[in-house]
């Protein structure tokens, strides 16, 4: 089946107008467009939350976009608006988590495939290497992590990051510089860390 795209991609403002009128498909488009950024930011702010909960939070953020679309004004910055909602949702979730027990297991995403011993071993090695580098990013403060992720993953320039996060452009540039510097230092110490791990104590 061939799908012919009749219209060019609608702008954020047009999508928000349609969403405000009750067009759920427009909301879906907005989610496709800004979902990864939201996910990325939530992850940057809350590395301790399980993946399933972050996904649920993302959905909650866009449900709030759906119910409050009419409050959005065209001159507003949509990314910044979504970012604000995400911050608010995360704050509420953290407050709720203090009072309830949350399972870490991801219910509908539990691994089902069982590989052979060799593939499992490779998988474990790969995970260890990935975890090591991922841990370096986790060691950054959330302020540094959020700007770095928006720059590298979302490819935003400093002005857009500044608007999204509601901070000054110069601050963004400084944080990006420092975040890279910290990771560079980490990279420089990586061979020694690896060697120490192989030799053992």
């Amino acid at each position: 089946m061939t799908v012919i795209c009749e219209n060019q991609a609608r702008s954020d403002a047009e999508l928000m107008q349609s969403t405000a009128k009750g067009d759920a498909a427009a909301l879906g488009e907005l989610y496709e467009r800004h979902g990864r950024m939201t996910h990325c930011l939530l992850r940057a702010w809350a590395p301790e939350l399980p993946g399933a909960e972050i996904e649920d939070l993302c959905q909650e953020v866009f449900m709030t976009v759906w119910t409050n679309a009419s409050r959005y004004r065209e001159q507003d910055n949509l990314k910044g608006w979504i970012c604000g909602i995400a911050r608010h949702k995360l704050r509420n979730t953290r407050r709720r988590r203090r009072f309830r027990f949350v399972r870490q297991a991801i219910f509908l995403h539990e691994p089902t495939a069982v590989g052979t011993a060799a593939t499992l071993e490779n998988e474990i090695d790969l995970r260890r290497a990935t975890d090591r580098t991922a841990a370096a990013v986790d060691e950054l403060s959330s302020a540094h992590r959020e700007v770095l992720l928006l720059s590298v993953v979302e490819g935003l320039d400093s002005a857009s990051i500044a608007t999204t996060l509601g901070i000054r452009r110069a601050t963004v540039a400084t944080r990006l510089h420092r975040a890279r510097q910290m990771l560079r230092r980490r990279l420089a110490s990586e061979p020694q860390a690896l060697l120490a791990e192989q030799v053992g104590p």
Partner: protein
Amino acid sequence: MSSCIDLDAFLNHDLTAQRLTAFMQHADSCQACRRALETNSRIEGMIADWTQARGVAAPSPTAVARLVCKATTLRAPERRGWPRGSLTLGLGLGAVAVIIAVLSPGAKTFMKAAPLAGQSLIVFEPAGARRIEPAQVVGTVLETTGTLRARLGSDDLELAESARLEIVRADERATELRLDAGLLRLAVMPALPRSFTIDCGRCLVRVTGTRFAVRRGPLDCELVRVDEGRVQVALADRGEIEVHGGESLVIGAEGRPRLMGNEERSPAATAAEREGLVHRDGSADAAPARAPTKRAGAAAVQRAPQPAAFDLEQLRTWVTTGRYDDAERALRTHLAAFAHDVEAWSLLGDCQRKAGRFAPAVDAYRAVIAQGEPGSSNRARLLAAAVLQDRLADYRGAARLLEELLRTTATPALVPAAKLRLAHCYRALGEPARARKLLQEILDEAADAPEADEARRQLETWVTP
């Protein structure tokens, strides 16, 4: 002319097209910039690793479909632009209209006639997503040979292991499903504004926003495993039982429910349950049921909080290493919630006995015996008798327990030891003939048993009082 100064601006995507070209030309000839760019690509690799490890990704088509369904099903966007006065007036008029409508004689007819908005069903098949319109959803039967995911309204369904599910009702007021076979996992929207029930033969599962799984096995056993939230399971002849997050309710072949913590089960037991719905002890339904509470006595369902990670093996180690108080505290907390856990009672008996608290030890063993599980009961009888006989000098009580043990045939390995102890009790109670008879029986029936030597020695040195 560009220089190394533009490096940060380049990395931050801040260069204009013209300056970008100039910088790239400069970087070709500048070793420092080339090195910096190489390092930056490694940093980007780290970020890529991080996003992979932390599962950061663009929303999948499933997630987008889920959001769109939720948006369509639950609420329309709030409108703005109504003047405050008009809104108040409108609400007031609406309230009056509702009161009149409800009080009028034709209200019932009118309310019945109002059609309920149905829920759509999206089935995620290997070939792609298939949407079933709300009008055709009721009566739809989903049958699987492998795993099948679907979305009913705003709720996630996952069918596995040759499952068969029929959608009986799906509208804005209620969702009713009937599970004929297999495993059904669900993630139901929290704070659901409608009822959600699953009929799986002998039990009816009622949900109010949670993540859980229901299984109907080939032997007509059911499992309700709750990961978050609360689920009420109505059993045809045993009332209702509430299953909390972190607990599983296993309903045996005879319809006897057994409640246990998810953490309580070993991975092997969990796997076994996944495969064929066997119980933790491997039996079909050997363990006694935890008495489910009728709805009228719902207060009794409220249980003490279960320890986050109740680990029987860990507690066994504590008992072995002398941490009796810690083990007792943990066991009593657990038993307050799971009063029919035979293993926990048995371990509590061992713990008390080793700690020198003999009367409570006997009580714990008696609790094991009360559960009626033959293997555990006989072990408990023998140990309780030993405590009564050796420590409390209650020969009558010990003899009674040992006689009970000998009346059952469940544990032949314990018989010689029981007879030896019983013979000792009879002697102490002034019944030497019965004692001699028992010692002789040990020699005749279990000459190879370790107790036979002791029986022989006693008979050889027998002095008639």
